[in-house]
Each structure stands twice: as structure tokens, then as C-alpha cells.
């Protein structure tokens, strides 16, 4: 073996702690970097990719067949901006149920086959519906509960004759164009039957069972709402006036599917960066420390005739060996911990991904190894350039007596035992080393702080449905619930029910207002505790009719501000209203208008109820349902389970945080090991003078208390700043002003706890070396003179 090889081998074998710590740190760093990168890719890409893979529909429109001929529909394929077209597919709205179990109304589209140039469907279970009385349900729809399996027979309540259909399969539409599919003839038959029935009883709601055709389009460009709307207008222009009754943009679907995870992206990017900076910092710290403490050895090597170049090569190799081993392991664990995300996104979005892109791993490993090599190179080049004599002298000459003021100071703090006061002064002897340790702890504390802030902020971005425990609806008519026939009696039932805390009645209608393009949704609200469902950003909550509360995007779009008077136009009627407040309301992209129901003369469609603490929601809902039965309304519990993707991301964020904290702890461990090595002789003297093992441990632990507290404080400050910056970016990106309750994620108690977290990291990292220091044999330590 060459002399160089021998040096490298003995170096790796003898410097066990730095070698192991380097390996571990690199491993954890690679794991968290792969995880972080995969997380941001996973939370961003899957819908778009699946959309591409299955030729999702950029635009789904509903056509009134009475007003447009099939030839005219075909002609829309050449409309400006249209790339591909599918349809017409007949549409019917059916209310289905099985025994006691009733499902909300479904929109069934008639399709002969799942294949299509636009919105290709993927069968997830069973087979396609080919015969009459067969139906395929949407796999990603609302009815994919355990109650339903293939073979279930459903009775269609709102189709004359109450036909029975069999569920033969489940299919996924990436654009969610329908709730179910059946053969076209079948759908047309239901449509016709419903139509005849409706003509006989004119009192039914008009929109519900109007016959419709679905046309699905892929567009050449559909990145923005404006592009989609332009195409929509081109298509409408190609058809007879009024034949295009409604249109759904894929952007709305994407928002729905991706949901809150879009809000997560800035967080994840920041988190990933934090992890990478941290990995770089600690890896650099560990390597530089290991090389620096070998300065004397380097001097010996040079005295033996090694050139500076050989010294550098020896140390770079010595650092790269454990780093490469750690990187390979980290790649493995990183990819493994990413697998559940991949499985879940495949499941949720219909993507067919098999794993994290290899380039992520390559990039991460190459990056980290480059950092290792660079730091080792820089540190050993410095040591290699030292004059041999000086290098040999390192460690022999007592260091220049830095930080003695601190030792004088701590020795005078009353009530501290001497070992503790000795330990407290440690960090001041080597300020650079302590700064590195503070940075390590600070990054650990910052990532915890950030993760806590992320979770808190996101949990506070809640909507009405997240706050209410129970909701009351009337039977569905068409795509939305019908108005509740006797609101007073419903309210009476709600208030009479024991356990009720408050309620909110909502009704939806479309309005227009100058400055905002197209139809806006206005929510007519009623009830004593309406305000608790919305978080105010500025202004005040509604006090009566004639007032509205809107979100920031509305103000931006219409160029208005709180206090302004605006006019809403509803069904041809102009209603002057005043904007009294700005709320954080992400519904309808922030263009929703909140007002008292009396402003628009509406009556509630849905009541949302909050219950008193300790009320069993299931029992409450059942009891209320019984009370409401004569009024033709039902009470259901509101499902509060967060989106699966969010749960998964939360879990991975937690894992990432743990990993970063472990890295910080390892950084501390490494530094304390270097420190105790440097002080091994002093430790021997202390013990010779009667310091017990327990006192030694106390001294070493005390030596990290101040750095731990400083790192904790700095880390919390950094974490909070990053959280604020990310929230600001989020606000700018989405156009919302975030309410204080979302921004201020940290209470004083939490801040204190997080700052103490830095101390915990420091103490945890110091425990092992403290034990080693306590066990060092005094004689051996003293012999190192």
C-alpha cells in the first residue's frame, strides 16, 4: 500500500467519532434533501402530470340540446384555441340510494367507452358499463366510501319508475367531469323520462333536470383563467346564442384537487432550502473540525516528507470515504421514505410514477460530496501550508488565553457549583468553534420552529366546513340543495336541540358588479354566530342588510376598498351595498361576496351548526335529523378529516424536522467531542483534584448550555422570520391578505418552548461525549503531557 493510502486508512480508522459523525450527517443530509426535493415535486407536479397523461379536459361545457345541433357542436372543434374535442355526451342528474343509504345527487354522463381524446377515464375497479341498468361511479368522487362496492344495486329516486342500476365499476376522471357514467342511450332515456315528468308537474325547480350535453375540450394554451375564458368565448361564439349554459375550467378543478397543498409549496421550498443549508453547514463544520484537530498530525506527515499536495489528498480522501458511505445509505433511506408519497399521489391523482426522479438523487449526492470535498480541501490546504514547525507546535502551546473574562465571570455567579461554572465558561475559549455549534443548534431550532409554524398556520386556514360540526340540508335538486322550505321552523329545531352552540345559514346566488368580470358568487348569511366562521383582515363584520364583506382579491380586482359603496346586480335588480370589511375567505378564489341574506332576499340552503364542547356530534346529528324530518331536511356531521395529501405532507414534514434536529444534535456531538479531546489533559487534572464522574458530566453539559440557549434563541428568531417571509410570499403569490391569526402562529409559550428546544438539542448532543469524558482514565489523560 502506498504511504498515502496507509495514512488515509489509519486516519479513517483512528478518528472514529468524526468518521462516524461525518457518515451519519451526510446520510441524514442526503435523506432529508431527497425527501425535501421529492416533497416539493410531489406537491406540485402530480395533477399536471396526470392531467397530461390522461388528456384532461381544459374546459367542460354544458350545452342545451334544444338550441344547438350536433353539427354545430362538431364545428366548435375548429374554434380558436381548441386543440381537441370530445362529446357530446348526454347528461342526467340522478338521486340514487341503496336501502336506507341515500347518496347526494350525481351528474351522470353518457359515454360508450372510457377512452377518449379528451378526458380519458381510468378504470380503477370493475369494468365499464356496457349494458342498460349499468353504471360506473367516479373513483375519486365523493362516493368512494366503503359502503359501495361493485355489484351494489342503486335505485334512482328521481327517475320515473325508480329504475335500479348496478354499479359495475369505478373510474377516475382526472378533470372530474362527472360523478358517474352510463351508456349514452341509458342516460338519454333517464333524461327523457325526467323531462316528461317535469312537464307534468311545473312546480319543480327549473335547472334541475334540464336536458344537457357535455362537451369536453383540450385547448392549445390554458395556463391562465383568461386563456380558458377566451377559448370559452370562441366556442360560445361558434354556437347559437344561449346554447352554452355553463362551463367549468380545469383551473378550478386543479384548485379543488390540489387544494391546500398549493399553499404548501412556498413552505416546502423554504424547508428544503433550510435542510440543504443546514446539511452544508454541519457537514462543513464536522469536516473542518476533524481536519483542524489533525493539524499536528499533518505537521508530522510533512516532517516525514509529505508534500502539501499529498496532505490535502490524504485528508480529502479521508473525508470522502465516510461521506460516500453515508450518501449511499442516505439515498436509500431518502428514496424509501419517499415511497409512501409516490404511492399516495398515484392513488390520488392517477399518476403512474414509480419513484423519485433519479436526477434528484444524483444532484443531492453530488452536491453534498462536493461540499465535503471542498471543506476538507480548504481546511487541509490551510493546515498543509502551515510551516511544519508551527503545525507541530499546535496543541502544545496553551491557546492564547481567550475568554478568561468569561471564566472569571462565571466563577463569581453565586449558587453555581464549581463544575457548572467551569463548564459555562468553555464556549468563550474557542469562539469560532462555539459559533459553529450555535449555528448548528440554531438551524435545528429554526427547522422545528418553522415546522410548527407551518402546521399551525395551515391548520388555521380553515373554511366554514372546517369549523362547523353539523350541517343541515334540504333534499338535493339538481347540482345544489333546494331552498329549505320553512327556515323559521328549522331554526326553531336547531335552537331547541340541546348541545347547540350556534348556527349559520347560507344561501348562494350569482351577482355581477362593475369592475369584476363575469358572475360572482354572493353568499347570503344568517344566524347569530356567522362572524365566527370568517377571519377578518380589516374593517368589521356585517351588522345588517346592505353591507358586504369581501376578500382581498375582490378589492384588488374591482379597485375598491373597505368603506366603498358598490352595486350588485342580481337577476336584473341593482342593489347598492357598502363594503364594511375584508375577510380571509379563499372560496371562489377570493371573489366571493358575503352579505346578510336579506340583502339579496335569499333563504338558506344550508345551515352550519357548531355544538357545545363535549357534545357527541353523531348523536346530536341523529337527534336533530329526527326533529327535522317533518320539515324535509336532514342533519349530517361534517367530515373534518384533512385531505390525505395534507396528512402525508404533515407526516413527512415531521420526519424532515426530526432528521434536521438529529443533524443538529450530531453537529453538537462532534463539536463537544473535539472540545473534550482538546481538554482531555485539563479533565485529567480536574479528576486528580477530586472531580467525580458526575461533576465531570455536569461540567461538560454546562459547557453547552449557553450555546444551546443562544442557538435556540437565534433559531427561533430565524424560524419565525422565515415563516413570516414565506407567508408574505404566499400572500403576494395568491393575492390574499392573511389574517393575523394565520400569520401569528406562535404564542409566547410556544416561543419559549421552542427556544428551550435549542437547549435540548445541545444537551442531547453533549450527553455521549460527557459520558466519555467522565470515563476517561485520569492517568492516561495526565500522561498526555
Amino acid at each position, binding site marked *: 500500500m502506498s504511504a498515502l493510502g496507509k495514512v488515509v486508512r*489509519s*486516519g479513517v480508522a*483512528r*478518528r472514529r467519532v468524526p468518521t462516524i459523525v461525518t457518515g451519519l450527517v451526510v446520510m441524514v443530509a442526503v435523506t432529508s434533501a431527497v425527501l425535501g426535493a421529492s416533497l416539493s415535486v410531489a406537491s406540485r407536479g402530480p395533477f399536471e402530470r396526470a392531467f397530461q397523461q390522461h388528456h384532461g379536459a381544459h374546459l367542460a361545457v354544458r350545452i342545451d340540446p334544444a338550441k344547438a345541433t350536433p353539427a354545430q357542436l362538431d364545428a366548435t372543434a375548429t374554434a380558436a384555441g381548441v386543440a381537441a374535442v370530445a362529446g357530446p355526451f348526454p347528461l342526467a342528474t340522478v338521486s340514487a340510494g341503496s336501502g336506507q343509504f341515500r347518496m347526494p345527487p350525481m351528474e351522470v354522463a353518457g359515454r360508450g367507452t372510457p377512452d377518449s381524446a379528451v378526458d380519458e377515464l381510468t378504470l380503477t375497479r370493475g369494468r365499464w358499463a356496457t349494458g342498460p341498468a349499468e353504471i360506473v361511479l367516479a373513483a375519486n368522487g365523493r362516493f368512494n366510501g366503503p359502503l359501495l362496492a361493485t355489484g351494489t344495486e342503486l335505485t334512482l329516486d328521481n327517475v320515473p319508475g325508480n329504475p335500479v342500476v348496478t354499479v359495475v365499476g369505478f373510474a377516475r376522471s382526472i378533470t372530474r367531469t362527472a360523478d358517474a357514467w352510463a351508456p349514452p342511450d341509458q342516460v338519454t332515456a333517464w333524461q327523457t323520462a325526467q323531462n316528461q315528468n317535469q312537464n307534468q308537474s311545473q312546480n319543480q325547480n327549473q335547472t334541475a333536470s334540464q336536458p344537457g350535453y357535455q362537451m369536453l375540450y383540450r385547448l392549445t394554451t390554458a395556463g391562465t383563467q383568461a386563456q380558458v375564458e377566451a377559448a370559452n368565448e370562441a366556442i360560445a361564439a361558434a354556437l347559437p346564442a344561449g346554447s352554452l349554459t355553463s362551463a367549468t375550467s380545469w383551473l378550478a378543478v386543479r384548485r379543488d384537487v390540489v387544494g391546500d397543498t398549493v399553499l404548501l409549496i412556498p413552505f416546502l421550498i423554504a424547508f428544503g432550502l433550510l435542510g440543504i443549508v443546514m446539511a452544508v453547514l454541519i457537514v462543513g463544520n464536522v469536516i473542518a473540525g476533524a481536519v483542524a*484537530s*489533525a*493539524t*499536528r*498530525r499533518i505537521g*508530522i506527515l510533512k516532517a516525514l516528507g509529505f508534500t502539501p499536495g499529498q496532505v490535502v489528498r490524504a485528508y480529502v480522501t479521508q473525508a470522502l470515504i465516510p461521506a460516500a458511505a453515508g450518501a449511499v445509505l442516505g439515498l436509500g433511506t431518502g428514496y424509501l421514505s419517499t415511497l409512501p408519497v409516490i404511492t399516495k399521489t398515484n392513488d390520488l391523482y392517477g399518476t403512474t410514477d414509480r419513484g423519485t426522479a433519479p436526477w434528484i438523487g444524483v444532484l443531492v449526492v453530488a452536491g453534498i460530496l462536493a461540499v465535503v470535498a471542498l471543506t476538507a480541501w480548504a481546511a487541509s490546504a490551510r493546515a498543509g501550508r502551515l510551516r511544519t514547525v508551527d503545525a507541530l507546535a*499546535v*496543541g*502544545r502551546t*496553551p491557546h492564547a*488565553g481567550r*475568554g*478568561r473574562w468569561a*471564566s*472569571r465571570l462565571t*466563577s*463569581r455567579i*453565586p449558587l453555581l*457549583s*464549581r*463544575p457548572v461554572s467551569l463548564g459555562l*465558561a468553555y464556549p468563550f*475559549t474557542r469562539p469560532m468553534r462555539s459559533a459553529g455549534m450555535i449555528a448548528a443548534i440554531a438551524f435545528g431550532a429554526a427547522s422545528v420552529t418553522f415546522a410548527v409554524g407551518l402546521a399551525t398556520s395551515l391548520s388555521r386556514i380553515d373554511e366554514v366546513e372546517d369549523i362547523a360540526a353539523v350541517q343541515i340540508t334540504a333534499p338535493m335538486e339538481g347540482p345544489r340543495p333546494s331552498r329549505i322550505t320553512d327556515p323559521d321552523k328549522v331554526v326553531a329545531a336547531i335552537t331547541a336541540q340541546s348541545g347547540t352552540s350556534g348556527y349559520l345559514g347560507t344561501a348562494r346566488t350569482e351577482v355581477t358588479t362593475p369592475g369584476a368580470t363575469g358572475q360572482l358568487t354572493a353568499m347570503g348569511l344568517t344566524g347569530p354566530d356567522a362572524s365566527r366562521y370568517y377571519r377578518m383582515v380589516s374593517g368589521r363584520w356585517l351588522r345588517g342588510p346592505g353591507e358586504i364583506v369581501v376578500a382581498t382579491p375582490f378589492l384588488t380586482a374591482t379597485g375598491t376598498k373597505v368603506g366603498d359603496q358598490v352595486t350588485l346586480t342580481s337577476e336584473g335588480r341593482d342593489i347598492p351595498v357598502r363594503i364594511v370589511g375584508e375577510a380571509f375567505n379563499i372560496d371562489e378564489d377570493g371573489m366571493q361576496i358575503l352579505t346578510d341574506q336579506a340583502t339579496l332576499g335569499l333563504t338558506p340552503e344550508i345551515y352550519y351548526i357548531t355544538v357545545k364542547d363535549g357534545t357527541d356530534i353523531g348523536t346530536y346529528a341523529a337527534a336533530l335529523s329526527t326533529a327535522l324530518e317533518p320539515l324535509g331536511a336532514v342533519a349530517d356531521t361534517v367530515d373534518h378529516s384533512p385531505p390525505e395529501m395534507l396528512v402525508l405532507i404533515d407526516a413527512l414534514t415531521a420526519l424532515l424536522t426530526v432528521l434536521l434536529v438529529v443533524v443538529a444534535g450530531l453537529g453538537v456531538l462532534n463539536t463537544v467531542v473535539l472540545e473534550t*479531546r*482538546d481538554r*482531555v*489533559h*485539563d479533565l*485529567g*487534572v*480536574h*479528576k*486528580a*483534584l*477530586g*472531580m*467525580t*464522574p*458526575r*461533576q465531570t458530566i455536569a461540567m461538560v453539559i454546562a459547557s453547552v448550555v449557553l450555546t444551546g440557549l443562544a442557538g435556540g434563541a437565534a433559531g427561533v428568531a430565524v424560524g419565525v422570520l422565515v415563516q413570516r417571509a414565506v407567508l408574505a410570499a404566499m400572500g403576494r403569490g395568491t393575492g390574499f391578505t392573511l389574517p393575523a391569526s394565520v400569520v401569528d402562529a406562535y404564542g409566547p409559550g410556544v416561543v419559549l418552548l421552542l427556544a428551550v428546544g435549542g437547549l435540548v438539542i445541545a444537551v442531547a448532543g453533549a450527553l455521549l461525549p460527557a459520558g466519555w469524558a*467522565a*470515563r476517561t*482514565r*485520569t*492517568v492516561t489523560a*495526565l*500522561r*498526555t*503531557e
Partner: protein
Amino acid sequence: MIELCDVTRRYDEGPPALDDICVSVAPGEAVAILGPSGSGKSTLLNLVAGLDHPTTGTVTVDGVRVDRLGEAASARYRRARIGLVFQFFNLLDDLTVSDNVMLPAQLAGTARADAERRAADLLARLGVSRHSDAYPGRLSGGERQRVAVARALMNNPALLLADEPTGALDTASGEEVRKLLTELHADGQTIILVTHDLTLATACATRTIRLLDGRITPSAAEGRAGARVTPSGAEGRAGARVTPSGAEGRNRATGDDAAGRDR
């Protein structure tokens, strides 16, 4: 007071550092241990101080079985009964002279004010009180050793152990320390002294024990017999002894932890 019975201390390699020796020291005695480098003198002292344990045999001090003490108990034992003085002083560079002296008392839990008072007394008695706020690095070798003695006496130890206390000092400083130890002995301090320095041995020891290759040489118990251990003889032995066993030489050549060892 001190009783070493059939004590052997064997390291992993080489012949035993101490080979089946028996020593007893009475209170008030000042015993000098003489012998060439590598003969086991420091090992013997370490056993008495509880810093090291014999491979076989017993070490009893004031009725305490020192060889059986655990780490914590032996630290407490040293605090209470032993004062240690080393060849290279072993003062802590980052602590002032008076903080160094106070340390054993403070480790034993004495309040700072009380420790300060006693340290001031000791430093005054040993003639180094004007340095009490200085750092050891500023002091001459003789002054440092007097500070080290003050530190060793801090807890009123029954037994003062000194390992070549003049070994690193020039003649004049050596003389100061010699006088100091003689005075201490005259005041009734029990002392075990390891030295090469025959003058020191004759000046303050009531008795000498000679070690050679870990055995007590059956020479006269009185210190006059020193003629046989000439300084040159000691050096020659050291060279012959250390190199084959190789512990030192090997570490120097390849030892990565040489940096630590050479503090």
C-alpha cells in the same frame, strides 16, 4: 497509615510496571521513592492516589481500600485525603492562581468565600500571594510549583504525593521547592516523594525506597545509598526500557492522537 501489600501492576504489554511490592508508610513520615525512569515510581504514586488500580494486591490508606474504590469514590477520597503535586505543575491555564488553588475545595462543595480565605492564607504562607490574580502562564517555574503545592494543600490532605516536584525546575527554583517540602514535613505533613534528585531526597525524606524494574531493591533503608543511582545511569536505563516496550515511540510515529497526547 499507608499499606501496599503484594502489589503488582501489569500493563497490556511488557513486563509489569510494579512487580509484587510491599510498602508501608507511617503518619508523619516523608518517604522518597528513587529509581531510574520507567522503574514504576509514578505507577506506585498513582495507585496510592487512587488514580490507578493494581492488577493484584491491596492498597490501604487510613483504613480505606483504595484499590476497591470506584471512580466517584476515589475522586472523593482524593479530595479529602490526598494532595497531588506533579513535575509539570498541571495548573489550569485558564484559571487564575487563586482559582486554581481554590478548585479542590470548591469541588468538595466549599463556599467560594471560605475557599478564597483559605487560598489567600496558603498563597501567603508559600510566598506567592502577590500573584494570586495572575494566570499561571506568567509565573516562573518555582512559583508555579509553589502554587501547585498550595493547591495540593487546599483541603488539608493527610497525605501529600509529589511526583518529581523539582524535575522541571532550574537549580534555584528547585531549592525553593525543596525548602518548602522540608518545612511542610517539619510541620508534620506526611509526604511521599518521587524524585531523581538525591539532594531533595536527602534533604526532606526520612526514608528512601529504591525501585528498579518494578521491584524494590533490597538496599539500605536510609537515603545515603544513592551513589548507585547516578543520573547518567538513570538516563541509560530509560532509553533501554522505553524503546522495546514501544508504547511511547509508536504513538509518536503514527499517532493521530499525538496532538492530544502532547498537551
